[in-house]
């Protein structure tokens, strides 16, 4: 079992699931990151504090972990800026259009056995795979 290289992935996934369970159990909310952020971009009175604190926790959690266990984070070098900007724009547009992302549709929606979430998850994984194939293998970029 020691040469099973996916303990970190599995353990990290369990923590993400636990975070989603905590938010539903305590606050009755779905831990969908795009939905939480969209609520900050279109603020509603009384709805911004918990969203902002969740996002602060998200950033701080990753930062604290990286400070405690700094090994292994190799930042990409020379990644094309244009791909990053175009990718980010499409992620923001598409997740708002479909009402969720990897966490909202994937982690939380599949956990609720939602057919909408399953369709969305299959859709974004499929186009993600096709995009990487085209960009990396047909165009030879990144």
């Amino acid at each position, binding site marked *: 079992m020691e040469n099973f290289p996916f303990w970190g992935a599995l353990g990290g996934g369990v923590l*993400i699931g636990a975070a989603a369970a*905590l938010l539903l159990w305590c606050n009755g909310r779905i*831990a969908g990151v795009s939905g939480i952020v969209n609520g900050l971009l279109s603020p509603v009175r009384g709805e911004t504090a918990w969203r902002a604190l969740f996002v602060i926790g998200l950033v701080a959690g990753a930062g604290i972990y990286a400070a405690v266990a700094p090994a292994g984070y190799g930042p990409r070098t020379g990644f094309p800026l244009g791909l990053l900007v175009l990718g980010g724009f499409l992620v923001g547009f*598409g997740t708002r259009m479909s009402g969720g992302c990897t966490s909202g549709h994937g982690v*939380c929606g599949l956990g609720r056995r939602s057919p909408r979430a399953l369709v969305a998850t299959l859709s974004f994984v499929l186009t993600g795979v096709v995009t990487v194939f085209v960009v990396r293998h047909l165009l030879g970029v990144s």
Partner: protein
Amino acid sequence: MKQNVAALLAGLLFGVGLALSRMVEPAKVIGFLDVAGDWDPSLAFVMAGAVGVTLVAYRLILRRPVPLLAPRFHLPTKRDIDGPLVAGAGIFGIGWGLAGYCPGPGIAALGLGTWEAPVFVAALAAGALSHKWLSERPAPEAQPGAGREQGGSATESA
């Protein structure tokens, strides 16, 4: 107040999970999507761990009439599988494959101090606000109330 503490703790746990699973590294994510190359199955284990927990925990939690600290559960109400769901998720997947970040890891990566994360998050906000602007813009022939369906799609989203 207690709800704010719970949200902060959930965010912290989520951020640690993303860092531990190395999903904050876009190269790992692109490695998962690169089925024709040197495929890295890590993300499948992340999803298995996370969905394994939510499948069990959500069922138990939703037996409660109300959450621990809030007056009611806020769950998505839409049931229909429609065009915006499929097309929006498809557009998101294209961006995910291009950048290697989805919203959670992209925002969490702000805590790692790389130059990529703030650029990605700014572009993400621009994309989300563009969709908001397009969907809230009244159509030229719109009757009063005709924009209701589109405006409603932004509420109670996952």
